[in-house]
Structures are given as C-alpha cells and as structure tokens.
C-alpha cells in the first residue's frame, strides 16, 4: 500500500536531515511524491499525475502560453453545470478569469460565479472594478465540496509549477545564488534552511537531475526541476489536503485544477530555458503578458510580484495528515506505516 499525499507539516524523525532542522519545515521534503524513477520520498507513494518517463515519451512541441490558456478555457466552457472559480486575486486566478472573459460569451458568463473573500479584491483592485460589471461575485462561505453539488469548482492550483517554486526562488535571489552553478548554489540554499544538513540533503536530492527534461545548470534550474518533479502531486491535491474541505473525496473529481493539463506541463518543459528571471518581478511573466492582453495594466505587468494569495484567500490553514492510494484519509500514526525503509 502507498500514499497519494502526505500533507502534515510534522516531519517524522526517521532521517536526521528531515528533522531537527528547518529543512523539515521548508522545503517540505517529507511531502515529496517523486515523479522520477529516483525516489527521495520519505513515504511509499503512487502517482495521480504523469511520471517523468511518461512526459518524456509524449513530449512534443508545445502550444504557446496563450494557446494553452484559451484551450483550457474552451474545455471549461464545455462543462455541464455552474462554474465556480476560486478567485484569490493572484496571478493564476486572474489569468483564469481573463481566459474566461476572453473565451466565454455574455450568455456563457452567466454560468460563472467568482468565489471571493475581501483579500481577493485587495490584491488587484482595478481588475475587480471590471469584474463586478461582468461576473457574479459570491463570498466563499462554505467548504469547497458544497459547490460541487451543482457545478464545477475551477482552481488556480499548480499555476506556480511551470515557473519555479516562489519561496526558494526568492531566497535564491536574496542570497545572490540564483545564477550560480546548481551544485554550489543549492548547497548554500539548503544550508540556509538547514545549516547542519544542507549538503547531505542536496546529495540526497541531486540524482533527480539525471532524469531532467531540460538542462539544469543554475540554482534556479534545479529549484524548478525539484518543484516540478517532487511537489506537483501535493499541490494537485492541495484542496483535498485541507481539513474539512471534503467529506466525500469522490467530489474532488469536480474540482478542476485549471493548470493541470499536459499542455501546460509541456509548455513549462519546452520553454524552461526561455523563461526570464532577473528578479521576482519577472515571476510568471508569460502569465502576466496574457493577463495584459485582456486587461491592460502596465504596472501589473512590470511590477506584480508573487504574493501567497492562496493562504490569505482560503479559510484556514489546517491540513489532514495523509491520504492512502484508496483515497481514504488516514491519521499520522497510520501514515507512519507507509514510511520507506
């Protein structure tokens, strides 16, 4: 038996560099679900997403970001029922709403409801001025499962995955190691999180490079690949991992992670070397260019930086411990049975 997700931020004291260090808090090594053949996982896991080998086989010339966005919006349009969009006001959900505005007719837009909190308004208020004229706004006043009863919930989860892990990327810029060769840079970065075990943690993680689908030279390359191969599944199941969101886990089939498509993944792989990173202001630039094509705002394009919208937007930051491969929620003690030797 295996897990599909381990969401508890408590790190089991099974390997010394997974605990007694900040590495256990961030990056959340204990939550890794490797898509590679090499498994730095702490737990036995099975994939609910494609493996790296599968992506390697189906790899082809990808669409542009704009084509990916429009294609996905067209797929959402075909869904039967109401469409509830979790709108945090961050780049991902703004991008989703832009794709909906661009691809939905006025009549189609009547099926759409944006689920908001006050922080959704504050993050991009000028865009909200436009939204109130076009789309129904509702307060997100219940857990997500409630919305799946008469429609689909569209989420911006995974939008980060094709760019880079924002926290580590920001720290790499801060430490001045973003463009350093990854071996030196990553050891410095991981040593920031865990002074004592940084080097050993890097040695533990480094074999993922052997399976890379793009060149890994710099610290930023390594961070992107680490994030894409180890945390994709955890983020894919993030709404499910949040305590109380779902009683019936099968309802999760009606949660549509907008960015969870092969097109977006292949775009991220094919375009990795083209993604410009001079500072965090460049973060998700392709996504912001798309937004700017629908709602012109030059300040947003040039200056908008990553803001952890999700945590401000969603009510609560309490997580379940784990879910097994039969989609049963299990507690921490039971999860320990799934630890790898």
């Amino acid at each position, binding site marked *: 038996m295996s897990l599909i997700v381990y969401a508890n931020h408590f790190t089991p004291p099974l390997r010394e560099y997974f605990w007694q260090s900040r590495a256990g808090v961030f990056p959340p090594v204990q939550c890794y679900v490797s898509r590679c053949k090499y498994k730095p996982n702490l737990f036995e896991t099975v994939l609910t997403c494609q493996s790296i080998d599968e992506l390697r086989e189906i790899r082809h010339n990808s669409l542009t970001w704009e084509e990916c966005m429009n294609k996905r919006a067209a797929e959402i349009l075909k869904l039967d029922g109401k469409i509830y969009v979790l709108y945090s006001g961050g780049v991902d959900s703004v991008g989703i709403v832009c794709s909906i505005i661009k691809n939905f007719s006025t009549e189609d837009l009547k099926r759409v409801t944006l689920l*908001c*909190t*006050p922080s*959704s*308004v*504050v*993050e991009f*208020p*000028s865009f*909200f*001025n436009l*939204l*109130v*004229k076009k789309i129904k*706004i509702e*307060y997100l*006043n219940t857990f997500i499962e409630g919305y799946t009863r008469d429609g689909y919930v569209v989420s911006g989860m995974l939008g980060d995955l094709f760019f880079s892990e924002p926290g580590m990327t920001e720290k790499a810029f801060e430490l001045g190691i973003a463009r350093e060769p990854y071996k030196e840079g990553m050891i410095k970065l991981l040593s920031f999180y865990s002074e004592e075990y940084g080097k050993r943690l890097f040695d533990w993680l480094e074999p993922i490079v052997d399976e890379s689908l793009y060149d890994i030279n710099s610290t930023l390359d390594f961070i992107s690949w680490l994030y894409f191969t180890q945390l994709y599944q955890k983020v894919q199941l993030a709404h499910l991992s949040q305590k109380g969101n779902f009683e019936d886990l099968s309802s999760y089939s009606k949660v549509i992670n907008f960015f969870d498509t092969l097109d977006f993944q292949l775009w991220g792989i094919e375009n990795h070397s083209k993604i410009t990173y001079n500072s965090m202001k460049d973060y998700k630039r392709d996504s912001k260019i798309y937004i700017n094509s629908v709602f012109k705002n030059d300040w947003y394009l040039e200056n908008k930086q990553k803001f952890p919208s999700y945590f401000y937007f969603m*009510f*609560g*930051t*309490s997580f379940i411990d784990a879910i097994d491969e039969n989609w049963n929620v299990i507690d921490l003690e039971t999860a320990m049975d799934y630890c790898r030797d």
Partner: protein
Amino acid sequence: MIKLLRIDNKTSRVFSVKDKTVQHREVPGVSVIYRVLRNYDKFLLENPFSYVYNIGIGVSRSREKLSRETESRLKDLQLRCDLIDTIWEYHWCFIENTKIERHNENTKILSYEANKVYEELCDKQFEVRNENARSHFNSMQDAIMRSDNPLEVFNKGMSSYMVIA
C-alpha cells in the same frame, strides 16, 4: 480578566462585570458552569439564582466557612473561569481586528460598485469568521469545564486559534 461571575437561570447568561468591552454575553456553556458550581458546596445552593460570587479575590466573608476541599475546588473553578474569560477576550479582540483591517491603500481605487461588493464581502467574512471563532471557543469552553487538565485544553485550543483567525 473575569473576576465576578454571575449565574442567572432566567437569562442563562454569564456576565463579565469587570470587563468593559464584553459586559453581557450569552455563553451556551453556562449550564455546565452552573452544574459545577452547584456541586461545590451547599453554600452555593443557598441562593443560586441571581447570586454573585467573587471568585477572583475572595472577599466574601462566607468564603471563610468553606471547607479545605471546597476551597481547593473553588481555586480550580477560578482557573477554569479565568481561562474561559481569556478565550472570550481573544474572541473579542479578533472581532475588533477584523473590523479594523477593512480598508487600506488598495481599496481606495475601487469604483463605487466594486466598493459596495467589497463591503458586502467584508461583512460576510466578519460574520462567518465570527461564527467559526465562536463555535471554536464554545467547544473550548465546554472542554475546559469538563477536562481534568483545563490548561492543556486551553493551550491546544489557543494554538489552533490561528487556524480560525
């Protein structure tokens, strides 16, 4: 901190007399408190309704008549009541803070229509968060009165308070 606890069976309310901000609030766990009080001493049953007892500083002359066991129980009750009062103080601060956070630089550029929706979202968030916090603290209050280790219940409950907040 609450020092004066009043039990009134007609209104089923707990009054925090020294608390300037939360003077008069309904606490569903009052029946639990009342049951605990009633069992402590016959003295407490003499006039249980509209009875005011100074738990905190113990100035009541009648208190001198209490047995050592009852005195010990009262100290225990005092601790529990102080903990309960503290959680409701936090609740009150939380509500106040939620109100204050409402406007900032970003909201100045909202159109009239957008601002109206924003205000509605704020009201709704306030209502929902308040309700969730109230529910959380009600459970805590009940657990504090029932548990053998009220401090542990308090610490655990308050640490998960951030989840609510």
